[in-house]
């Protein structure tokens, strides 16, 4: 590793060598190096290939701002080498070049492809023949982009965290001004967070939380997300101080993208922070004293300064000092071209206002240092609502108005912290482009947009900066306009004849810093709900799947046999996922009367009634059973998926009506199983003292009793079509009750059954599943449940007005059952067609019924066809079949089995 002698402010620890690889080759670095500084010290000049033309690109800013050094680290693309600290064993690889960085075949797009790749080329060059677009697209997508996301699992396993932080003051930027603002706020007793992305450590400030090597990504309604390592801090502060500094601007000239062309700040950072010489012989082009100071610093570090081109017309004191050191300073000169094959070999400069080869001077060099003035880094301020104006003297847009609670300090506010005098601060505004006749002059390095491209976009009618941005994609790359917005505005002004003020800036949008998607996604959080009996389902080998937030047993290996067991002996299903609400209080009956279209105040204690919740638009929201426990207490069950929403719905109306009712959500606290089948009664009777005879425990009775010693609420309902007991009890007893029922049923042929056989069983009874057989358009009338709506109720109820209207009108479609003669089970969602083949309805449920030995289903069909015996045509992905409509349950249509 070749290094300069010790530099006073260097960040490297020369006693500690770090080894990593670049494209498989070993590289040695020092602790404190960045990948960029280490590779540069190792002699590397080409760091990447450009987006479109695959031109060589090298270090430019050395501050994480430009796109030139983006690499992949350990498989993750999009990492800036110049700011990424070196780590032992890290795997660094180039992006966007095939087969390698030094020989990239796509370079042809630059050499021969120029005429075929103007702005919008994929709409021009690749438009004909139209049929070939899929091929073009594939090739273009392969050629474009900045790297490939890792597909192997180990590379993708990356845990990220969210952190929320509330503070009085957030200071973004840890330079002199930022530290001063943070310190002052902390002294006032305020809770301060300071965010800094730079490599230079900040000394602790009392009362200030410092987030080092952290980047503020944007400003969202008072929240500033800050990315630091694997954490996204979401910082909400009452006041914001932005000390985001100013960004050195490149110059637009021929070959301005060649490796070896470096911003003055970048060259100085390499020298001072990492003791790496940026070159041996340099030409410096500047618009202010900034480049002159850089020239002096580089000369101090041993770089031979071949010439300095100062755009200004007068000779500053700094220029005099350089001249005194024997350095040639060309006043009133600009750079026209950087020349070289793989890196800078020479620079051409010329006097401003005069053209022609006779006045041009060419200097051999391996480094071109440019300084095109500074643009305040205002993006976050603009996102927060700040306004700007054009400052002609400084040649850039500056802050004008700030929103309340937002302050700008330091360079971003136009305050030079170095305290330079007026003469030294004087800046010449560079021409939009120089040396255009010498070759490609890049306005935008990220997206390979040249000065000529912007001219062309104006000629083609994209004559506003926002349009040109979208057409050429200038400012839309990884640098987010840091390097290209001002040059693009200058070029637009030149081509449209407008002032810079008139051209204006593009809208500042987040993210200000390139950020991995994983950071934004945060840690995956997928809570899974499991019933208290879940362990038993696993022991029984259940096929367990997601059902909303729940993990549920879909079947235990043979859904058809499980369904048959319910018909022939007994089945046991875990229905703990049902929503369970206790509605209690003197007004409980009236409350439910107002919430449901049917009546509950007249329900006798110990009895159960089915209920459908409708919205005020008359649409079905949820369904379930309601058992009156005593005068003041109702036990309400809801669908599994609707449990949370129904609780919110109930409590919302309760908050509005302020009735004497208390709601208690027992969904998590209680477990439930449904014991169903011809032998269910015998099994239950073995475990309870309750009289289970059909006379004593009738269909739709709800009784409280001990089962296997556990206090239970037993609801005799018939969702699956056989005699059934839905047993609810404290969740802690889940396995105990399950085991007791399975044991008692062992000699009676009991089988556990899952969700899938339950779906077959309920379909045989045409019991709807809300959300499966209904959607947000379904009314109780269309869903064939007009009996559920009691319009003669005295009280107003939710949905009354709409249901009164629907009661008078024939619904366009109705939910009916259908049977199919053949063995094909249509897909749920298959289309019901009319005679002309137009879609008029859809299949919502369909299954093969083992007990009926035929295919059954439910579908929405036009009302005229919604009668027994009608024939409807179902089209299922190309297969057409004739189904017969049936309006009464397929199994036990008169409910004799159910009531037995």
């Amino acid at each position, binding site marked *: 590793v070749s290094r300069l002698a010790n530099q006073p402010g260097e960040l490297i620890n020369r006693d500690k060598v770090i080894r990593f690889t670049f494209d498989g080759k070993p590289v040695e670095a020092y602790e404190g190096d960045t990948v960029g500084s280490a590779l540069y010290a190792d002699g590397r000049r080409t760091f990447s290939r450009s987006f479109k033309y695959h031109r060589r690109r090298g270090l430019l800013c050395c501050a994480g701002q430009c796109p030139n050094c983006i690499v992949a680290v350990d498989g993750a693309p999009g990492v800036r080498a110049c700011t990424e600290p070196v780590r032992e064993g890290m795997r660094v690889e180039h992006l966007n070049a095939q087969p390698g960085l030094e020989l990239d075949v796509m370079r042809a797009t630059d050499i021969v492809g120029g005429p075929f790749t103007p702005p919008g080329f994929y709409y021009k060059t690749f438009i004909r023949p139209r049929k070939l677009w899929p091929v073009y697209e594939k090739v273009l997508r392969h050629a474009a982009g900045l790297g490939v996301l890792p597909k192997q699992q180990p590379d993708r396993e990356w845990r990220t965290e969210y952190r929320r932080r509330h503070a009085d003051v957030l200071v973004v930027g840890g330079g002199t001004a930022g530290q001063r603002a943070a310190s002052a706020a902390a002294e006032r007793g305020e809770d301060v967070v300071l965010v800094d992305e730079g490599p230079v450590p900040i000394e602790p400030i009392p009362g200030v939380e410092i987030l080092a090597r952290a980047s503020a990504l944007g400003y969202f309604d*008072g929240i500033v997300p800050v990315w630091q390592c694997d954490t996204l801090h979401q910082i909400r502060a009452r006041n914001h101080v932005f000390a985001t500094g100013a960004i050195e601007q490149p110059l637009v000239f021929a070959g301005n993208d060649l490796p070896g062309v470096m911003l003055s700040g970048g060259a100085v950072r390499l020298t001072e922070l990492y003791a790496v010489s940026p070159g041996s012989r340099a030409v410096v082009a500047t618009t202010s004293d900034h480049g002159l100071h850089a020239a002096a610093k580089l000369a101090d570090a041993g770089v031979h300064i071949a010439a300095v081109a100062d755009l200004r017309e007068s000779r500053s004191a700094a220029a005099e000092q350089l001249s005194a050191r024997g350095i040639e300073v060309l006043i009133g000169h600009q750079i026209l071209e950087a020349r070289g094959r793989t890196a800078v070999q020479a620079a051409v400069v010329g006097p401003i206002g005069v053209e022609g080869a006779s006045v041009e001077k060419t200097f051999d060099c391996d480094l071109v240092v440019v300084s095109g003035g500074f643009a305040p880094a205002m993006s976050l301020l603009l996102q927060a609502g700040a306004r700007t104006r054009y400052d002609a003297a400084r040649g850039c847009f500056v802050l004008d108005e700030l929103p309340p609670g937002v302050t700008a300090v330091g360079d971003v506010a136009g305050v030079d912290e170095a305290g330079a005098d007026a003469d030294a601060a004087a800046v010449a505004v560079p021409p939009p482009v120089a040396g255009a006749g010498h070759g490609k002059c890049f306005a935008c390095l990220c997206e390979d947009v040249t000065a000529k491209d912007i001219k062309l976009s104006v000629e083609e009618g994209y004559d506003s900066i926002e349009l040109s941005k979208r057409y050429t994609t200038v400012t839309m790359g990884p640098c987010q306009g840091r390097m290209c917005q001002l040059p693009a505005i200058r070029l637009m002004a030149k081509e449209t004849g407008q002032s810079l003020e008139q051209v204006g800036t593009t809208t500042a949008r987040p993210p200000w810093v390139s950020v991995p998607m994983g950071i934004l996604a945060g840690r995956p959080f997928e809570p899974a709900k499991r019933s208290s009996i879940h362990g038993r389902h696993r022991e029984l080998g259940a096929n367990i799947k997601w059902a909303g937030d729940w993990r549920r047993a879909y079947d235990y290996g043979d859904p058809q046999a499980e369904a048959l067991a319910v018909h022939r002996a007994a089945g046991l299903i875990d229905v703990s996922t049902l929503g369970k609400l206790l509605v209690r209080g003197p007004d409980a009956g009236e409350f439910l009367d107002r919430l449901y279209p049917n009546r509950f105040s007249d329900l006798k204690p110990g009895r159960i009634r089915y209920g459908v919740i409708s919205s*005020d638009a008359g649409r079905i929201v949820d369904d379930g059973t309601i058992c009156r426990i005593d005068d003041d207490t109702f036990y309400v069950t809801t669908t599994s998926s609707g449990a949370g929403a129904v609780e919110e719905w109930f409590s919302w109306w309760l*908050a509005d009506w302020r009735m004497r009712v208390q709601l208690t959500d027992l969904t998590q606290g209680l477990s439930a199983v449904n014991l169903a089948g011809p032998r269910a009664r015998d099994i239950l009777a073995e475990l309870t003292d309750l009289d289970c005879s059909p006379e004593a425990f009738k269909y739709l009775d709800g009784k409280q009793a001990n089962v296997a010693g556990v206090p239970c609420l037993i609801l005799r309902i018939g969702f699956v079509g056989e005699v059934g007991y839905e047993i609810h009890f404290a969740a802690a007893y889940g396995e105990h009750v399950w085991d007791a029922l399975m044991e008692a049923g062992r000699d009676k042929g009991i089988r556990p059954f899952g969700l899938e056989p339950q779906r077959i069983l309920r379909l045989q009874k045409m019991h709807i599943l809300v959300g499966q057989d209904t959607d947000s358009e379904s009314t109780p009338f269309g869903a064939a449940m007009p009996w559920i709506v009691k319009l003669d109720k005295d009280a107003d109820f939710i949905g009354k007005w709409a249901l009164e*209207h629907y009661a008078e009108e024939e619904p366009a479609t109705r939910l009916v059952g259908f049977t199919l003669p053949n063995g094909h089970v249509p897909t749920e969602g298959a289309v019901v067609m009319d005679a002309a083949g137009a879609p008029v309805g859809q299949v919502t449920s369909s299954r093969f019924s083992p007990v009926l030995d035929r295919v059954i289903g439910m579908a929405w069909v036009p009302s005229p066809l919604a009668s027994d015996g009608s024939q409807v045509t179902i089209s299922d992905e190309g297969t057409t079949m004739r189904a017969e409509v049936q309006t009464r349950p397929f199994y036990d249509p008169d409910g004799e089995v159910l009531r037995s």
Partner: protein
Amino acid sequence: VSFLLTCPNCGVREVTDFGYGGEISARPRSRPTLRQLGEYNYFRRNVAGVQREWWFHRSGCRAWFIAERDTRTNEVLMTALPAAPGPNGGDAA
């Protein structure tokens, strides 16, 4: 959107803690015309300014409450549990 709301029970919390119930609208008290019903169900005033609206502390105490919020700035001017019901119901009735 991102702002703070003061739950009447729990205090100041991030908006992501809450569910939004929409602007408070008047439910018809007698049989509405079809148009009135449609407007009640599907139309919102959607004011640019201070709006009275429902919020639900979903990740907290699970109480519904009323807020006054400036829809232009997301400044929440007031939050309160619903007042006692009027002769025909509560705030939304």
